[in-house]
């Protein structure tokens, strides 16, 4: 029971506990006298009963089934898996940050407001767009904010626009956001050099278009040389130009969205400005914009009044609130520490080394023994990432990109992003980031070479990989067909036998 896969609920034993309540120092009035009978919970929530030692062991053991950035190379394209400086956890944990209530009056939260202000100023400078709201909770939330701002901007001008353009290389959140924001998605094609197809853009950029969402460098890791012409076309159509900042790691201190002509940008603080990714968040997706968009920014805005700071709620044209309070402050603390540590020179250094590492790894993969099987898509100097196609391996070796990725798991490296962007067949999207050493890049190329060599001998090894992981390939189709999305005592349960009988509060009927 101890070593196999068992949920914390199955470890429960009636009567065990970790928590002990502080003493009840007020009269022990019966619950029935304080709450009406019909609102009182009848059956307690079936939470695990477990001692602290076993609780610690359960999650410690679980954790060791995760591959993680502090263990090895994690070139997950588009995700900017750079090192998370340990200083950031220390400063975020300071009680003055960690135990500060979001509704503390500004006069008693001056340190926090100054930090947010300084971060806004820095992000504005990096983006080349002066006005910043830190509120959005993640990149996709920032995208939504961007389109809500666009809508408010156009409505304020009495314009009704119904379409938003996105390149076919766009990240999935872009079109998904368009729909959520009440617009219709119109795809723009990609030219042979991997950039936006200008003719297609010209054709589609009509006066019913509200916005073009773009990332530059794009998801192919390529910088669109025609960015100025693109901006001209979009602006001539009266639309806004939105910058998906997920790829900002390539260009800090070198070029700025604002200077390229973008009106609105979101940052992924958890990418460019290093947050621990936490297994899927938290992050933050601040936005920056130009003067004409500024009146519509969310409330509250942090403002400087003399040498103190305050929240401004009085913004008549604001789109309102995107979420509670003022955003993911704990994330701001870490990114602010990062910007303070690196400074103006360090940030530029980041982008230069990120691009160096990507091009070096690309060069390693362009060598004989690899490039025949994994040709580089749109081969030119890349920025912080690049995309290769597994088409060669598929045809000549009979192993798919998925097989290559799964085989990497046996080599203790995290696979790149696979099957994205969609217009590249069997895509592998590789982003090494600047915090990786040459040895790591060399090792990764060796691993790929070894996997391809091996496949020449025996493709079955890759097809059935991984072989050394806690579990092997999992039945995802079955999982989706008959979804089991919570543990139930009905299921065979080594836990407290009684519990196996009685269904929990929510057991009734469900699934």
């Amino acid at each position, binding site marked *: 029971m101890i070593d196999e896969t068992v949920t914390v609920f199955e470890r429960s034993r009636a009567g065990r506990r970790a928590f*002990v309540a502080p003493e009840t120092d007020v009269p022990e009035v019966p619950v029935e006298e304080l709450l009406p009978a019909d609102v009182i919970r009848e059956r307690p929530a079936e*939470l695990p009963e477990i001692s602290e030692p076993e609780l610690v062991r359960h999650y410690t053991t679980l954790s060791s089934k995760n591959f993680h950035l502090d263990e090895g190379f994690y070139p997950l394209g588009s995700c900017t898996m750079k090192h998370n400086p340990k200083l950031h956890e220390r400063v975020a944990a300071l009680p003055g940050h*960690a135990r500060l209530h979001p*509704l503390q009056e500004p006069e008693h939260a001056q340190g926090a407001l100054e930090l947010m202000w300084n971060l806004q100023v820095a992000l504005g400078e990096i983006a*080349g767009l002066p006005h910043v709201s830190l509120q959005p909770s993640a990149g996709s939330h920032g995208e939504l904010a961007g389109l809500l701002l666009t809508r408010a901007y156009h409505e304020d001008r009495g314009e009704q626009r119904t379409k938003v353009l996105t390149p076919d290389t766009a990240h999935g959140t872009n079109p998904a956001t368009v729909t959520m924001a009440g617009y219709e998605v119109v795809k723009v094609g990609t030219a042979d050099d991997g950039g936006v197809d200008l003719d297609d853009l010209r054709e589609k950029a009509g006066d019913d278009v509200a916005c073009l969402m773009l990332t530059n460098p794009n998801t192919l890791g390529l910088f669109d040389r025609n960015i100025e012409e693109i901006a001209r076309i979009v602006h001539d159509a009266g639309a806004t130009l939105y910058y998906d900042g997920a790829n900002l790691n390539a260009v800090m*201190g070198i070029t700025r969205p604002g200077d390229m002509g973008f009106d609105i940008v979101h940052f992924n603080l958890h990418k460019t400005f290093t947050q621990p990714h936490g297994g899927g968040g938290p992050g933050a997706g601040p936005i920056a914009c130009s003067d004409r968009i500024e009146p519509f920014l969310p409330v509250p805005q942090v403002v400087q009044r003399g040498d103190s700071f305050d929240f401004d709620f009085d913004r008549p044209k604001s789109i309102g609130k995107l979420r509670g309070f003022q955003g993911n402050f704990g994330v701001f603390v870490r990114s602010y520490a990062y910007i303070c540590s690196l400074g103006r020179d360090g940030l530029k250094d980041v982008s230069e080394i990120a691009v160096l590492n990507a091009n070096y790894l690309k060069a390693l993969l362009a060598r004989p023994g690899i490039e025949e099987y994994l040709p580089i898509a749109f081969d030119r*100097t890349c920025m912080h990432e690049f995309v290769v196609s597994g088409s060669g391996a598929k045809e000549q070796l009979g192993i798919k990109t998925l097989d290559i990725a799964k085989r990497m798991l046996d080599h203790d490296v995290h696979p790149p992003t696979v099957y994205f962007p969609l217009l590249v067949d069997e895509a592998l999207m590789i982003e090494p980031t600047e915090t990786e050493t040459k040895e790591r890049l060399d090792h990764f190329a060796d691993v790929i070479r070894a996997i391809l060599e091996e496949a020449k001998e025996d493709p079955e090894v890759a097809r059935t990989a991984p072989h050394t992981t806690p579990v092997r390939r999992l039945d995802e189709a079955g999982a989706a067909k008959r979804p089991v999305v919570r543990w139930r005592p009905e299921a065979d349960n080594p836990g407290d036998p009684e519990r196996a009988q009685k269904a929990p509060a929510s057991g009734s009927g469900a699934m």
Partner: protein
Amino acid sequence: MSRYTGATEEDLREMLGAIGVESLEDLFTDIPESVRLGRELDLPPGRSEQEVYEHLAALAARNRSAEDEITFVGAGMYDHYVPSLIDTLLGRSEFLTPYTPYQPEISQGGLQVMFEFQTAISELTGLPVANASVYEGPSAVAAAGYLAKLETRRTKLVASRGLHPHSRAALATHAAGYGMEVVEVPLDEDGATDVEALAAAVDDDTAGVFVQQPNFLGTVEDVGALAEAGKRTGALLVCAADPIALSVLKPPGELGADLCVGEGQPLGNRLDFGGPSFGFFAADQRFIRKMPGRIAGETRDVDGKRGFVLTLQTREQHIRREKATHNICTAQALNALAGVVYLSWLGKRGFAELGELLLRRTHYAREALGLEAINPGPVVREFAVRVPDLRDVMQRARAAGINPGYPLARDYPEFSDGLLVAVTERRTREHIDRLASLVGAQVPEGAPA
């Protein structure tokens, strides 16, 4: 200047050589001169770790946190005690530094945590399906609105004035995008949602009805009655809930709620000046394929070994793009981990004990303060009172190291002298008595006690 890069002079030479260029400059030739920055960024120079620590510590010292004062402020986020083992577990690189588990074979830790989290949320809410987290509370409410739209294709949302002001604001902001109107239902004189008014506001265009349990004033709502009134015309009943209160209150799922969403901060997450925390999103079985966010599911591997995967991904942006049921990608996995560890730490009995402690201290506090109650009915962990000469009381209290609560005036002009007082297990009877003596001095003759 701090550096987290590793490229040495020698590395640089070798790497540029392998690439076949002369200098770093050559890697950026695709960027037109005309859009180059051409100067240094206007930012301070980089600093050493020690100097950055000193700078941020100095900033932190200028905030008055719950470590520095006795706070009765709640209003959506609460100063609960976060057990030490959460620091230890969340600090483990294995949980802290990976990203979304796209490769399940090397992510079973994170995936099982999601599955356990979903189970715990399902237990709390009394609904069979929960996702692995959304951003936070108010945006979770907005996400519920979007699901109501997708499900019903109707145009109107009805929200109780008892819903958190931030939730109402976020709902309106998002609804402006997906093109829906939001109608507000007032509170009755006891600070509970006016059931008649709600019934009247609901019609055939209504996609969703939003209530909160307990509501923003702390009032325990009659969710059953509200559900009955709200669902008459086929709208979804969305109940926002304080997960801690669900330790003693009947799960919304047992009272007719179709969706139960909320702010997860009270479950083992720090205050952090408002975030990051997590939002939870639970639903009835019929919505499982319209839910936002990641969902972990149980399955087997090729050897028949039990395992977990991200499932029902056809709902999601990376697969369905413009047809996705929501655009969320990065969520709040680490905060959700804190949530399920916290609930496991409390355990079945401890969770109830905690709820009962808060219930008793809260009613004791309302008594002790002896002020006119805005919501005299049952409350769990928070209540609203009228404080004559509020500003004065605030000042005296702050001088005494006590933050007496959240003034209602900004969000509820009708309660210009209203104060929202929250109690946690960290606020002892002695703290409450000190607050009472402070406000007590202010009670005018003959005011109701």
